[in-house]
C-alpha cells in the first residue's frame, strides 16, 4: 500500500510537470508572425524603386549625385533596410546609397529588385536590395 501511494504521487507529479512542459513548448511554438512579412518587404521595395525612377532620383544617381536619395532613406519604415546601387552598361558601379541606420552588409539581403533605365542615351541598371533590420542594426 505504501509503495502504491508513492507511485501514485510520483506519477501524478510527473504528469503535472510533463503537462506544464508540453504546454509551455506548445505556447511558444504558436505562429504569431505576420504571414505577409516577406511580401510587404518585396512590395515596398518594388514601389520604392518605381518612385525613385519616376521621381528622377535614379537619374541623379546616374549623375553620381546621391544627396536627394540619401535624404529619403531615413524616412523609410523603421524595420526595413535598403541600399540602392546604380551600374552603367559595362557593370561598373556609378553610385551606391545605404540607409544610414543599417550596416549595408550584403549577407542579410532578403529581396532584390532590379530595373533598367535610360538616362542621357546611356542604359543603367538600378538594383535595390532590402532586408529586415537585424538586432545588431536595431541597436545602432
Amino acid at each position, binding site marked *: 500500500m505504501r509503495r502504491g501511494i508513492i507511485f*501514485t504521487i510520483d506519477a501524478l507529479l510527473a504528469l503535472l510537470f510533463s503537462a506544464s512542459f508540453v504546454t509551455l513548448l506548445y*505556447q511558444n511554438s*504558436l505562429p504569431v508572425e505576420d*504571414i505577409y512579412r516577406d511580401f510587404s518587404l518585396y512590395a515596398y521595395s518594388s514601389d520604392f524603386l518605381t518612385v525613385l525612377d519616376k521621381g528622377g532620383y535614379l537619374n541623379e544617381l546616374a549623375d553620381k549625385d546621391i544627396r536627394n536619395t540619401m*535624404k529619403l532613406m531615413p524616412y523609410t*519604415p523603421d524595420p526595413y533596410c535598403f541600399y540602392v546601387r546604380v551600374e552603367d552598361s559595362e557593370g561598373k558601379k556609378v553610385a551606391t546609397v545605404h540607409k544610414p541606420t543599417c550596416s549595408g552588409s550584403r549577407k542579410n539581403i532578403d529581396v532584390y529588385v532590379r530595373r533598367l533605365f535610360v538616362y542621357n542615351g546611356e542604359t543603367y541598371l538600378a538594383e535595390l536590395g532590402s532586408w529586415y533590420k537585424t538586432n545588431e542594426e536595431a541597436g545602432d
Partner: protein
Amino acid sequence: MQCQPSNRAQPSDAKAGAYATRKRGQMFAMDLIVAILLLLAILMLVLSVQGDVMGREGLASLRVDMAHEAQGAAQRLLYAPAQPTDWPRRNISLLQSPNIISSPGVLDWEKAKALSNSSYNDTREALGVSSQIYVRIMQFNSSQVYLSFGQQPPATSTLYRVERPILINGTVGRVVIEVWRELG
C-alpha cells in the same frame, strides 16, 4: 484431513484487525485526497492554457484576416486597374476596384479626392474590407497628412498597417492603409 486456513478473523485478533483496517482506510483517503488535488491542479492548468491558446489563436486568426484585407485594399488602391475604367466619374457603389493612381507609383488626386468624398460603407465595400479602414496620404519625411478617409482607429483597437511609397505631384509621399477592429 487437511485443515484449510480460515479468512475469518479469530475473536482474539478482532482488536488488531479492526485497527489494521482503520489504518489502511486512512492511508487510502490521504492518497485519494492528494491525487484529487493534483488532478484538479492539472485540470486547472489545462483549462487555463486552453483558454490562453484559444485566445492567442483567435487573435492570430483575426490578424491574418486583417492582413488579407489590408493587402487586398492596397492591391485595389495602388496596383489593380480601376473597374469600371471610367472611375471616378461612375458612382462608387458600382465600383469593383477604385484605384487612386494615374500610373504605377503615381497618385491621381482626382481619384483620391473622389474616394475620400464617398460614403464610408461604399468605400469599404469597394475595397473589399469587412473590418474598419483608415487611409492616409502623407508626406514622406513627416507625419503631415495631405488627405485621409475612413475611420481613425481608437487606441484600444488591433490593427494591421500597410505602407507604400507613392509620387504625389512629383514629390515622394506615402500611402498608409490601416485595417482595424475594436477588441472585446
